[in-house]
């Protein structure tokens, strides 16, 4: 007799997958003859051997499961989801739960943060940005904007530039968090975007607000000589224009910039910039950082990690030529081409790389957290904050950069022909950002890990308690059965949500860490959910004990333990498997509902439930649609797939259903 060659497990799996997903036609095409056809023609001593046609129940269930296309897809989706959610976090090393970024709040899905318009690409004069949008100026004097310009719930669009601007040649342009200002070559001033804090113009409302410094009249009326302007820059809610003769015009929100007062009417300023809360500048002496606040930024360090020394000691006769700021700290360019830092740095920073021999910095530009420095050899180095990988310079800018521009989380390198060489930094957000400015895509992955873990562990606890109680109850019967079933009844008559709410509010009274709270939620869900499994197990055992094959086994003298494990357990397992899948989806739903109400997983730890909390407000739900749509779609998709698997399993395990099909 010819011995049948056994098929490799992997090949078999692939064959089944192809059959399940694409149909038997492709299976035949790719794997040769169908399995069952091969079997049908076996003979043993001239008699058809049908022993291989009889398949074990498990095998039969598997075969019938694989015939359901949707179920097979669902299995793959759920496995993929698990992998993404559990392996995904390893690919986002910069992610942490409590991340907040005020300049990136409530941004819609976009990938346009570095999308420099094609007309501008070869003719760049300047690029500036502070928040979610960038503004660029071409040598021809035209202004371009890209990134997210529609800001906040009000729907204010910062891309609406004044119309007469297109007729003028613009000389300077700068962008703030939600406003832009521009100066034409004839000195005309333009401002657009938000004017809530008097950033761009004088209005009756801003005049009535004592906390605002109004825009100087000579600026607003266009009386400046554009050729004498040295620098135009914008802060969070303020703007400044610096003339070559040292005269400074500065206006905006004095509550954001407490020391803005100290700079009004100054005529001896060489350079100026804004940190998040302070205005900083250099005066004509060029030996200190002018802040108007005693002791602020008077210590400097040669690189980010070095120990700070007094600025006068460090300079030792050298002069400061340029000052650039990020949110928390500032960078000074000295006249000998070296740089130094003042202020505190947060975690996750990149230090300055060692420069080549004879190389020195000629220009420094800064974003919200990072700096980009241009050297005399045309190299660009980025350092400082690196959360969005904005300090990772591409190799294409090696030795050929003539000018650099930086803003918020991006840097742009431009060659000597004003042509864009390359750009690096934050591209955008696939799913947008939430109310704290965190990337929703990352939070969805991290939240999925939490939600799926809670669901899975809760089900495992349910199974452990439920099955063991069901086993005891069904196997021993008698008074133990009655007692256990009464207990199960008590547990199932506990009103789930009210009880969960009380327990969860009790948990807030106890000082628990984030993870301990998570474990408690899993345990509570599991402990309240076990009676279902206990009933099923008990019923299965009772049925099995009465059935003929167990009676037969007993009559043959098979040991009790062997009967329990070899005959009864397999029957229970299939039923438990079905209920496990359905319970898993149900636990995930309970967890998300609780977290949505604020009684499950709490912010900052993400879960697919508490990420949607904001959507309970109708206005927020429509204005910030991306904050709930993607997450809930993924949640629903996952639970649909899990339930499909459960349903299909139940169908294929039910011997009755085969006759109907």
């Amino acid at each position, binding site marked *: 007799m010819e011995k049948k060659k056994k098929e490799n497990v992997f090949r078999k799996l692939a064959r089944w997958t192809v059959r399940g997903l694409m149909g038997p036609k492709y299976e035949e095409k790719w794997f040769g003859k169908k399995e069952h056809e091969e079997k049908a023609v076996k003979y043993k001593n001239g008699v058809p051997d049908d022993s291989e046609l009889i398949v074990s129940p498990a095998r039969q269930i598997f075969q019938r499961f694989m015939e359901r296309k949707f179920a097979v897809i669902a299995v793959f989706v759920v496995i993929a989801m698990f992998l993404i959610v559990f392996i995904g976090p390893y690919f986002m090393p910069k992610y942490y739960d409590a991340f907040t970024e005020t300049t990136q709040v409530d941004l819609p899905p976009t990938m346009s943060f570095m999308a420099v318009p094609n007309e501008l690409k070869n003719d760049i004069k300047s690029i500036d940005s502070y928040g979610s949008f960038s503004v660029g100026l071409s040598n021809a004097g035209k202004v371009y904007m890209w990134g997210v310009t529609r800001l906040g719930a009000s729907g204010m669009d910062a891309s609406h530039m004044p119309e007469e601007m297109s007729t003028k040649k613009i000389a300077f342009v700068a962008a703030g968090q939600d406003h832009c200002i521009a100066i034409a070559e004839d000195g005309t001033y333009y401002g657009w975007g938000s004017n809530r804090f008097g950033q761009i113009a004088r209005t009756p409302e801003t005049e009535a607000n004592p906390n605002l410094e109004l825009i100087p009249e000579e600026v607003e009326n266009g009386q400046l000589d554009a050729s004498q302007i040295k620098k135009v820059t914008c802060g969070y809610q303020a703007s400044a224009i610096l003339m070559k003769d040292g005269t400074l015009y500065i206006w905006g929100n004095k509550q954001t910039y407490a020391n803005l007062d100290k700079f009004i009417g100054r005529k001896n300023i060489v350079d100026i910039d804004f940190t998040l809360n302070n205005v900083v500048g250099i005066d004509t002496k060029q030996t200190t950082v002018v802040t108007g606040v005693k002791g602020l930024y008077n210590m400097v360090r040669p690189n980010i990690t070095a120990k700070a020394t007094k600025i006068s000691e460090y300079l030792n006769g050298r002069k400061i030529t340029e000052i650039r700021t990020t949110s928390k700290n500032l960078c000074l360019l000295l006249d000998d081409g070296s740089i130094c830092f003042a202020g505190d740095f947060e975690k996750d920073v990149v230090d300055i790389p060692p420069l080549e021999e004879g190389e020195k910095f000629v220009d420094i530009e800064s974003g919200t957290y990072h700096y980009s420095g241009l050297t005399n050899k045309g190299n660009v180095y980025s350092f400082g904050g690196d959360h969005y990988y904005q300090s990772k310079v591409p190799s294409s800018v090696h030795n050929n950069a003539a000018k650099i521009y930086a803003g918020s989380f991006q840097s742009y390198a431009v060659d000597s022909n004003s042509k864009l060489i390359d750009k690096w930094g934050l591209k955008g957000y696939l799913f947008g950002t939430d109310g704290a400015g965190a990337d929703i895509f990352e939070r969805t992955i991290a939240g999925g890990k939490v939600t799926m873990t809670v669901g899975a562990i809760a089900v495992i606890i349910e199974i452990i308690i439920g099955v063991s109680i069901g086993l005891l109850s069904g196997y021993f019967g008698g008074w133990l059965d009655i007692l256990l079933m*009464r207990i199960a*009844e*008590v547990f199932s*008559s*506990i*009103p789930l*949500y*009210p*009880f969960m*709410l*009380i*327990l969860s*509010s*009790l948990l807030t*009274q106890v000082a628990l860490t984030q993870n301990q709270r998570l474990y408690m939620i899993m345990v509570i869900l599991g402990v309240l959910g076990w009676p279902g499994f206990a009933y099923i197990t008990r019923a299965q055992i009772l049925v099995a004990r009465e059935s003929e094959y167990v009676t037969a086994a007993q009559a043959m003298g098979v040991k009790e333990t062997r009967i329990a494990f070899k005959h009864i357990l397999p029957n229970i397992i299939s039923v438990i498997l079905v209920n496990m899948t359905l319970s898993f*989806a149900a636990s995930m*739903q309970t967890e*998300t*509902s609780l977290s*949505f*109400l604020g*009684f499950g997983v709490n912010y900052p730890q993400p879960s697919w*439930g508490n990420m*949607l909390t904001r*959507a*309970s407000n*109708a*206005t927020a*739900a*429509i204005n910030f*649609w991306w904050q*709930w749509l993607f997450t*809930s779609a993924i*949640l*629903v998709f996952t*639970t*649909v797939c*899990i*339930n*499909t698997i459960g*349903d299909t399993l139940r169908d294929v395990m039910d011997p*009755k259903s085969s006759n*109907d*099909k």
Partner: protein
Amino acid sequence: MGRYILKRLLYMILVFFLLTFVLFCLYQMMPENRAYTDAKGAMAAYKHLPKEQQEAKFQELYLQYQRQYGTDTDNKVVLYLRWLGLYPFYDGHRSGIFTGDFGYSYEHAAPVVQVVGPHIRNSMLIGLFTEIAVLGITIPLGIKCAVKKGQRFDRSVQFLSLIGFSTPSFIIYILFIVFFCSILHLFPVSGMKTPGSTLTGFANVLDVLWHIALPTICLVFGSLASITRICRASMIDALSLDCIRTARAKGLKEKAVVYSHAWRNAIIPMVAIIVGGFFGIISGAMILETMFGFKGMGLLFISSVRTADYDMIMFLEVIYTFIGLFSNLVIDLTYGIVDPRVRISK
């Protein structure tokens, strides 16, 4: 029959005491101390006293309030019995849920029974509409799907109900709110009536109906899928019974087979859902009511938990537990009526 009910009632009472005791003990863990807060508040009148006297006065007041509230002991059982009204307070009087004193809501500054009244009414208002609509839609749908099992109609309903079943209810509510309130502007987002309106008679009724329309629609759609699935499954089981084959073999009309023979079998597993659903009305819909700011039982419970309104939560828990146990009893009794094979006299 009478003996069975009596037995069940006894069991119910036992479980009731057990559950309320557990909840009571859980709530004792809350760091809330009313006597202390009130004593501190009352001390304002004794500011002029010297320090030692103030301290003594405070201790005196604290003890007085503790005795008044019955918290002058740490014995959980005594506290529980006092709450039930079975154990006397310090001054010898008894006051608890058995003497009709369910407690006082500090948050609403009113006896809890008074606060709960309108909330139950509101919850029952939308609950009743919802339950009728849900059963009116799902039962015919489930029957039709079971009869046409495997056909295109059944498969599309199955597909939709799978999605609906897998969607957490709050996502359905979000979708409806966005669609009906933010895009179509058809319904108001929250409230029971137009704020500041003085409508009377029919106009008032219309106004209230307009306000409760969207919550009701949401609630209906939130529970359609699962009940349709259950109805279909039990109907399929019923249709595969031998008696159905016999009925068909006898030459009965298909209508008679489905609606008389099969449905009477299919309704048995449905009893729990239908009866439980009607009792569930009283409990209110927690998530829905929170999202719509609808002053029902669910919202009352959540706001009480948030503000740690101790007496309120205990009273609501008593109601919830009672409803749960009582509906179980009614379900079992209903089985006896619906299914002649179930004999509940034993």
